[in-house]
């Protein structure tokens, strides 16, 4: 009985193992296919209204839907659906000439009517990524020419609307009353380089197929797949995917293994929110003293282990094309900070500043901060506490849930709070959004709501409405300088993000200048997948070799471990059988 039991157990175990042995490790198909790993997986259905309104959600959608203009690794805007365009300041209108050979994935031609329809539709059903208050209406003046009337000068138009608003097919969407409920096949018909093939919410996977009739030429790969991975970097190393984000500390190792590592531009800002309604933080001199007391490099060295860069005090990323060349700087100087604080009536007593017998004490709120959709624990609170205590400010460091910190900041119930946000590489409109409370919008915990400087307000107004590029650039530069002087919030540092891809897959990924669309800092621009004919020939060869290599590597999979496990099991069973007759 016992032997039968053990024998059957071994049989079952061996059967399972044999099954595994035979698993031919389904290899990548011979077609040109690119697989991208992502930790979260599910970013919503890849349709404009259904994709989650976060960067990766937009990226999943942008392969299927094209906008009027686009950006690449140089400077934008570059033509996409619109071959050329013109702005007329007298009338305050934009005229776009569309590509005549553009087609929807269902074969219908793309016309000016679709663009006009999209604007009307999105005005009626607000689309999170583009606020169309600045657009009055669109008029069709030819089968492929559309005229967009503005309701007032709006300088960020090209990036904010032209380069972000996905064009919808009128023949499908005209009957859709509630876009949030529209999940039928039509919701995935766009005119972009890739056709929607599949999305699995539960597995967090996406599949796109190349669109043969794409107006800029067929994409250089046949299939694009997004895969959810517990550890994207491991999936890349293991050959399961061709593209993944990598941990900063591992970037060199990964580069040494033959992968191409892309080092991100610095478009994300860790900053210190300041309650400028409270004493002494309402004083500009005190805020400037804080800057002198803060050693940005120490944050980069300790918190990011060197994988980052000290931030510009003018909010806009120092790597942005909009960065001002002469933003006021506050080099680390604790003595100067102390000197400035003492001018405010504070007295130095036993290492702490006091006023009227009360010590100078501030509370700093810290929490897990979502960086690129991933919650990241705070490492900066302690560093900040040390730095500020050196200049005689007593710090009460309080760690709370992110949402609680957000609520406290929104309700002005804080002194200082460590926070962070992206978008500092795209259109300088971010300056306006992060300083002033945008009318009609819900208060964001990252907005300083600073209204004390007339000069800054005027400059921000110019920044939003000045249509002359040179004058606008001047306003953008000057507003950064004033921002760095007034300090509605203090920028601390920019973390460096790393992505890596396998060069064998034949796609050269790159970071988009200013970020994809409104400033998404993910190096997955569809332009990388659209190449000219000559280029795709080379790639075809390169990829075929990879596919074969993957195949052979995969076939040799789990034979060795399987045999080992069988051997161990058998040995164990034999020992057991011999022992089974012994008395306890």
């Amino acid at each position, binding site marked *: 009985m016992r032997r039968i039991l053990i024998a059957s157990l071994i049989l079952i175990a061996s059967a399972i193992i044999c099954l595994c042995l035979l698993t031919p490790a389904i290899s990548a198909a011979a077609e040109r296919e690119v697989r991208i790993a992502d930790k979260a997986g599910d970013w919503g259905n890849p349709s404009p209204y259904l994709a989650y309104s976060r960067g990766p959600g937009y990226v999943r959608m942008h392969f299927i839907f094209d906008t009027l203009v686009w950006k690449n690794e140089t400077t934008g805007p570059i033509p996409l659906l619109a071959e050329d365009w013109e702005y007329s300041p007298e009338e305050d209108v934009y005229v776009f000439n569309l590509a005549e050979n553009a087609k929807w994935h269902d074969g219908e031609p793309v016309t000016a009517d679709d663009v006009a329809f999209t604007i009307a539709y999105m005005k009626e059903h607000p689309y999170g990524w583009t606020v169309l208050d600045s657009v009055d209406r669109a008029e069709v003046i030819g089968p492929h020419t559309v005229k967009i009337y503005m309701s007032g000068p709006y300088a960020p138009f090209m990036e904010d609307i032209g380069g972000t608003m996905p064009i919808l097919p009128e023949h499908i969407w005209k009957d859709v009353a509630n876009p949030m409920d529209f999940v039928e096949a039509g919701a995935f018909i766009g005119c972009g380089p890739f056709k929607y093939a599949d999305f699995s919410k539960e597995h*967090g996977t996406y599949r796109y197929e190349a669109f043969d009739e794409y107006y800029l030429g067929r994409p250089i790969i046949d299939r694009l797949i997004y895969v*959810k991975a517990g550890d994207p970097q491991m999936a890349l190393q293991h050959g399961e995917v061709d593209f993944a984000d990598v941990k900063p500390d591992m970037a060199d190792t990964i580069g040494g293994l033959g992968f191409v590592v892309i080092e991100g531009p610095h478009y994300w800002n860790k900053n210190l929110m300041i309650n400028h309604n409270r004493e002494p933080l309402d004083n500009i001199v005190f805020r400037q003293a804080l800057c002198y007391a803060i050693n940005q490099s120490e944050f980069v060295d300790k918190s990011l282990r060197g994988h980052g860069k000290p931030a510009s005090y003018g909010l806009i990323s120092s790597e942005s094309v909009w960065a001002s060349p002469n933003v006021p700087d506050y080099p680390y100087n604790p003595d100067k900070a102390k000197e400035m604080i003492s001018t405010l009536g504070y007295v130095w007593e036993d290492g702490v500043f006091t006023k009227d017998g009360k010590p100078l004490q501030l509370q700093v709120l810290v929490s897990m901060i979502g960086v690129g959709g991933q919650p990241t624990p705070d490492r900066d609170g302690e560093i900040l506490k040390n730095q500020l205590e050196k200049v005689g400010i007593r710090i009460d460091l309080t760690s709370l849930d992110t949402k609680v910190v957000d609520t406290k900041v929104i309700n002005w119930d804080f002194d200082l709070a460590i926070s962070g946000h992206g978008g500092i590489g795209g259109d300088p409109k971010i300056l306006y959004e992060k300083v002033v409370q945008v009318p*009609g919008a819900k208060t964001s915990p990252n907005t300083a709501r600073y209204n004390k400087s007339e000069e800054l307000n005027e400059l921000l107004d110019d920044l939003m409405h000045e249509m002359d590029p040179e004058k606008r650039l001047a306003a953008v530069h000057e507003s950064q300088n004033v921002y760095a002087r007034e300090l509605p919030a203090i920028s601390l540092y920019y973390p460096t993000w790393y992505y890596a891809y396998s060069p064998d897959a034949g796609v050269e990924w790159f970071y988009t200048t200013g970020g994809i669309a409104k400033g998404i800092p993910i190096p997955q621009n569809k332009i990388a997948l659209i190449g000219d004919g000559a280029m795709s020939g080379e790639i075809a060869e390169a990829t075929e070799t990879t596919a074969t290599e993957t195949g052979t590597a995969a076939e040799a999979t*789990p034979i060795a471990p399987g045999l080992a496990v069988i051997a161990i099991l058998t040995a164990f069973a034999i020992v057991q059988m011999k022992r089974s007759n012994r008395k306890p």
Partner: protein
Amino acid sequence: MRNRTMKMVVAYLLTIFILLFLNFLLPRLLPGDAILAMYSGHETLMTEEMYAELVRMHGLDLPLHEQFFIYLTELAHGDLGYSYICHASTADLIMGALPWTLLLVGTSFILSAVAGIVLGVESSWRRGGRFDKTLLTFMLLLDGIPSLAIGITSLTVFCLYFGWFPSTGAMTPYSGAEGIEYIKDVLWHLVLPLATLTLSMIPGDYLLIRNSMLLTIREPYVLTARAKGIKNRRIKYLHAARNAILPFATRIGIRIAYLITGALFIETIFAYPGLGLLTYHAISNRDLPLMQGILTVSVILVLLINIVVDLMYKKIDPRVGYAY
């Protein structure tokens, strides 16, 4: 008898009600504005209108007791709510994840139970011997290692270093495999998470059975059985283990909650699309309806299994029936 059944039914109903109430209340007690919390990570601008619309969609504008009433009514209709973050019905999301969890956790339940019982019985039978001592030390050691560590180590060794098994997911996405190939692919992906989960569960089962067996093998009836010359194997498994298994049944009842929580870490490491991962995402996104749905399903599941275990007790050990 009827009285007793009535009492049991009332007790279970009351438990369900209290749990559902907590289930409803707890997510709402989370600090911060629920809507802002849910959408704070979004990069788009939220207008006052959108905010008001979201509050209305989630029914958060109603007084608490009305919200609870609506929740109960919807639940009675089998409606677990709608996740606005995922744009999908909560029931669909849970049903999508449940089969994978059942495959992973269910299989490892069975494997670890069989291994735990066999090893525990054999070990206690040879108590004090070399086999027992080695196994006990090994099991205590294994018990001390968190499943997280086992998972990461096995990933590093078997996936990254040797490259034998895939690192992620429950199958190769879009491989085009069908039939037997598909099953093989799924099993191949199952190996590492299953081994990790099973390894982390065996020590508990083993220790429980071993200790429980140590008590039963001292019973006079075991001595009698041996005196009668019954084969050891029969005494071990039919006389002693049969009586030692009762605490194990209790453990199964308790551990059913593991279906959801226990595999959370392992599902996250291996990106296995089960309920654990779904729960993790629901919590990190503050997806109120989804969180509530998963909790409701798990509450009902745990209670159902407990009823089954309650009934099973009487089958496993008739003495329980006399206790009333």
